[in-house]
């Protein structure tokens, strides 16, 4: 299961200061495509366990984080490497899209 980030401090620690790449799924409970994406995100968490951290940010609970990263639509999935945004995908996508996004970063 992808871990839910609950506070700004937790986001700093778990995402920005992470030693390994972090995939962040920005979502909200009222967003249908986000809920459809959720199982894919959980599968990715399992698939890349130990190599890539996969977390979720509820934009209703952490609007400041969403604002800081200029989220204008969800689902938005961002891949962070060393605290920086390495790649972004907006909208519901098949798993393969996120896999290739992750593989590209892991391959470097």
């Amino acid at each position: 299961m992808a871990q839910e980030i609950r506070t700004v401090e937790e986001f700093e620690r778990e995402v920005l200061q992470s030693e390994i790449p972090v995939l962040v799924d920005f979502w909200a409970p009222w967003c249908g495509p986000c809920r459809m994406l959720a199982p894919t995100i959980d599968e990715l968490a399992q698939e890349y366990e130990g190599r890539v951290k996969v977390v979720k940010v509820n934009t209703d609970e952490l609007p400041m984080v969403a604002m800081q990263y200029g989220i204008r639509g969800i689902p938005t999935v961002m891949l962070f490497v060393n605290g920086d945004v390495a790649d972004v995908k907006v909208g519901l996508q098949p798993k393969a899209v996120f896999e290739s996004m992750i593989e590209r970063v892991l391959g470097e």
Partner: protein
Amino acid sequence: MEVWDVIIVGAGPGGLAAGIYAGRSELKTLILDRMPGGQLLITEEIENYPGFYESVSGFELSEKFRKHAEKFGAKIEVGHTVNEVSLDGELFLVKTDQGEFRGKTLIWAAGSNPRKLGVPGEVEFLGRGVSYCAVCDGAFFKDRVVAVVGGGDSALEESLYLTKFAKKVYLIHRRDKFRAVKVIQSRVKRNEKIELLLNKVVLSINGRDFVDSLTLKDVKTGEEMELPVDGVFIFIGNEPNVSPILHLVDTDPAGFIITDEEMRTKTPGLFAVGDVRSKPLRQVVTAASDGAVAAMSATKFLEEKE
């Protein structure tokens, strides 16, 4: 190679309803899609699907359809984008980005996608101020200024929805009259947050990191103007997903697939249902109805062949 009795392309309400009926008729049924749900997912509440009088979210209804199809044995495979469909003898050969599938019949339920304006900035600012889904993205425009482009029911309904968040909504339409139904039109005209910009077309969507303005042109006077906005929501209709089977079907002038009442296209064994079909009303209930009819037609087609 495995041969399916029915391959259904599209896991929206039309495709899943076809899957329910085909599965229940004990046909070996495969449903292919990128992701399940279709346009239903971007609908906040479905208020007019019979039986759900307390209203149901698009996501929940689509999950019920999916589980229902699976209950009757339809196999659903996601992550597939269909690139090509051809005839291989008596079989349909469906090529996706992940593999090839053969079916004795094919039900095309690939739905439609929002039509694009086709102006500079539209692709670049997707998710950065350009949106085709007010339900998904409206909340990020709290106390901001947005524009809506279009003149039909969805453009007007979504404008009203966006007033829940935005402090101002410009409704931009290329004509001086709206196509939307009267009730919605009067609701829009009563709403103080909505300002109508009629006889205007969008020439470009501008900004640096995010959208910050639109360049508009008045179609009557030819005058151009710059409109500062934080976001633009585009609702100018839908385009049917037909390209992989275009050589196997006839379409109407708008590009929708022509079928008879049994959902048959001009190619025997190929049926079309839901939003891709030329028809007067595109709703969950009509997509589901098309799906049921197509599954029955496919069953009949297979029986007659044997």
